């Protein structure tokens, strides 16, 4: 009996996001509530919305979608007019290759996101919200829909929530599987029923977003962290992580480790600890060759960089990469960087929305240059052309996709030039088809 009780209790001490994940059946509202879920939502309705915003700002929570922009500051740009029509969107597109943390979070515990969204909606005064979920996440969409139904039945969503005179409707919207719909304005375009193309900024969504109205877009992980922050306060949250990167973060680890998966650790944990302790070390005892620390658009770390880096926004950036969405892709010595490069360039060529010229033409050309070996046109100088072309794409486009394609390419050239040269000079016969 005691054991079951323990299983029913949330572990707030070690986790903020995964504090309920060990509880069987926590995707059911009843189980979630028994473990302490929705308590903060009820408590927050008695709080001043501005005070909630202040706590979130003071907590130092940074957007977990990839950019790492402070959530509280972003909320500060939002209109304070509570009567104005506006939207809260949850970005669950999670399209960055290597990332699967939001899926894991939503799949096991959809209610923590819903609770976080209701508190955020109350703080921001939004009357309507959408969870934009990646098209491939069909099962997760079903789980979310079911959870929403439960929350509606309980009166936590809809009109006059808990008699507080506050209305909040929440819907699940499934995407059609484009990478760029993970970019907030691309997501808004898609939600509007248009082609998923990012919009020109300014105006930013906080001013003019979905349907031309003020819109707040936050990542699943950011919103799901709100209930914990409200429960224990900003100071407690800041005890985790570093000074500038507060709190815990979910990391999706894939590749050549013994135990790949999603873990929640404080920001600033060393990558070495993550690999050696949380992931059970390298697979087959192989030597680590490289790590992509923040999803496919982050420049790669070589062996030495990987073992010295601390996983927080600043330290990863200072070593020339980015924390991004926290997708750690581990490669051991059996892997060829050329394959990673090929795969990365193919991906971005396929996913460029085609709006801005440097990205539309550049992503395709990068792939063509790198694949010249297939037509027998390759030369060693191609790596320089590749580097130069990638550099000329950066900072030239509406959204960051051009940078996302150029950065890893340049990163791989920087760290593994000789290997890439050997790779492109190895003829293949695929071009002879």
């Amino acid at each position, binding site marked *: 009996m005691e054991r079951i009780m323990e299983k029913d209790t949330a572990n707030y001490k070690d986790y903020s996001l995964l504090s309920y994940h060990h509880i069987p059946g926590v995707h059911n509202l009843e189980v979630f509530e028994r473990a302490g879920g929705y308590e903060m939502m009820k408590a927050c309705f008695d709080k001043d919305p501005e005070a909630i915003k202040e706590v979130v700002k003071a907590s130092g929570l940074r957007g977990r979608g990839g950019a790492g922009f402070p959530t509280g500051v972003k909320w500060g740009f939002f209109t304070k007019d509570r009567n104005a029509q506006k939207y809260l969107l949850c970005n669950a597109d999670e399209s960055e290759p290597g990332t699967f943390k939001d899926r894991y979070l939503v799949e096991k515990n959809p209610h923590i996101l819903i609770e976080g969204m209701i508190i955020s909606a109350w703080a921001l005064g939004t009357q309507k919200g959408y969870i934009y979920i990646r098209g491939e996440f069909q099962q997760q969409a079903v789980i979310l829909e079911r959870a929403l139904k439960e929350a509606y039945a309980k009166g936590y969503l809809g009109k006059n929530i808990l008699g507080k005179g506050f209305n909040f409707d929440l819907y699940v919207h499934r995407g059609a599987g484009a990478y760029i719909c993970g970019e907030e304005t691309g997501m808004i375009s898609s939600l509007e029923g248009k082609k998923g193309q990012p919009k020109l900024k300014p105006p930013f969504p906080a001013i003019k977003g979905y349907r031309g109205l003020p819109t707040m877009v936050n990542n699943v992980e950011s919103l799901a962290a709100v209930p914990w922050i409200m429960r224990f306060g900003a100071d407690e949250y800041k005890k985790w992580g570093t000074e500038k990167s507060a709190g815990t973060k979910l990391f999706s680890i894939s590749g050549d480790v013994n135990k790949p998966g999603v873990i929640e650790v404080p920001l600033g944990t060393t990558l070495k600890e993550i690999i050696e302790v949380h992931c059970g070390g390298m697979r087959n005892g192989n030597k680590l060759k490289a790590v992509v620390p923040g999803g496919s658009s982050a420049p790669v770390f070589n062996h030495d960089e990987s073992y010295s880096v601390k996983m927080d926004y600043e330290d990863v950036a200072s070593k020339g990469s980015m924390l991004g969405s926290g997708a750690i892709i581990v490669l051991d010595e059996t892997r060829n960087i050329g394959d990673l490069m090929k795969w990365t360039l193919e991906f971005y060529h396929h*996913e460029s929305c*085609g709006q*801005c*010229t*440097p990205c539309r*033409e550049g992503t395709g*050309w990068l792939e063509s240059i790198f694949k010249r070996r297939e*037509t027998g046109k390759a030369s060693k100088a191609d790596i320089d052309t590749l580097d130069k072309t990638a550099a*000329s794409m950066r*900072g030239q486009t509406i959204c960051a996709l051009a940078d996302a394609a150029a950065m890893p390419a340049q990163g791989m050239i920087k760290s593994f030039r000789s290997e890439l040269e050997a790779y492109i000079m190895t003829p293949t016969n695929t071009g002879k088809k």
Partner: protein
Amino acid sequence: MTEKVKLTWNGKQIEAVKGSNLLQAALDNGQEVAHYCYHAGLSIAGVCRMCMVEQDGVPRPFPSCNATCGEGMVIRNDTPKIKAAVENTLQFHLLNHPLDCPVCDQAGECGLQDYYMKHGQYDSQMIDKKVHKEKVQDIGKNVMLDAERCILCSRCTRFTEEVTKTNELGILNRGDHAEITVNENLKNDYAQNLVDICPVGALTSKDFRFKQRVWFLEEVYTTCIGCETGCSVKVSQNKNGSYRVKPVFDETVNGHWMCDDGRSIYKHVSSPTRLQVASENMNGLFVPADESRVVELVTGKKANFILSTSLTNEEYARFFESIKGSKASVALYTLPTQGPEFDGILRRGDKNANLRGAQKAFEAAGFDHTSAGLDKVLNAISASDVAYVVVPEILYNEDHFNTLLKKIEKASTRIALTPGETLSSMKVFNYLLPVPSFLEKEGHIVNFQGTQRQLNAGLSYGETTKDISYYGKWVNV
């Protein structure tokens, strides 16, 4: 009162309206900014990435088309960083471009060619297979699409979305496989504007295709006489003839656009069947005739003039001056209304280009310009009379005109004064005499707003310098 602000562009002080478009302000002040997707008459897309600028105190370059003018802004687009960015972006524009300039109608006025001269890298590194798209697509309304030449600036899709609101065009697919596609063939009446706004040779006019190289053409800036709107236009012509009509930006009347009907107003001017010299009807065949024989024929007979509404104010005045003191009767033939009164954009149903000018001239000379006046003149025509008919320059409804011709059959001498082609219905006339077309005369017309609009003369074709007042003088011989 619009507030003006001062800003610095490449070290030069320029003035602009506060909050106005930065790129436009620079262009208005004579500064050069490369751009493809920006068009003053359309929304901002910001996709061509050519108009990048740097601003003091702003860390990253940004496109000037999406910025507004503010006091004291210090902007540069001549820094090495921006120059390199424009060069690289142009390289990307040209990467998959087919470079078929020798067979492209846009050559000579192409945005890619123009900027290549200035920002080109010249040393091509593109040895890879280009992306191929469909060429020579007839997308309706005299517009041809070559998807391969397209740089996807999205001006055309924005035009059909925002101006005509017909949404025939869209961009299908992603990345370098994105291309302009028609949901349905073009159906709007402003489709030719797509050809004008396309900065490259992706959209060309079927009417103009392969007819002339643009560097052999000169422009005459004049006014469209297709309807009472009176849009500002330019007609491209050379000694071989006129080739196309394009709109000229005019804030007060037509803005950036013109309708498709107006695109063909030049056709009669240098048409092979254009009447060039006085001609006589020999059993249904018109052969050149001696003018003195016509004068002989009309001398001493009562003249009935039926004028058209496409003459200039000056022509009406000169004409009434020329017949002063004679017993000639004068009436005005007005073209029937065609289509809706106003289509909401530019085109109007009233096709009488200078109705207001004509009415004023008639009133000043003491003649009746109403349809009742026309009927009166027509009914009074006797067998011994001469009937002169000034043929309307643009005849939308020939049947309606033919009913007028039926009514003048009573007169023994029937003379047409025509600025255009010889039509089959003109067999009713004994003589055809040429008058200048709208492209061969200077003068003014009055449009629907009551505004004076200028007509300018271009090249002249044939003996068309004699206007109607020359023939009007015959009444007093």
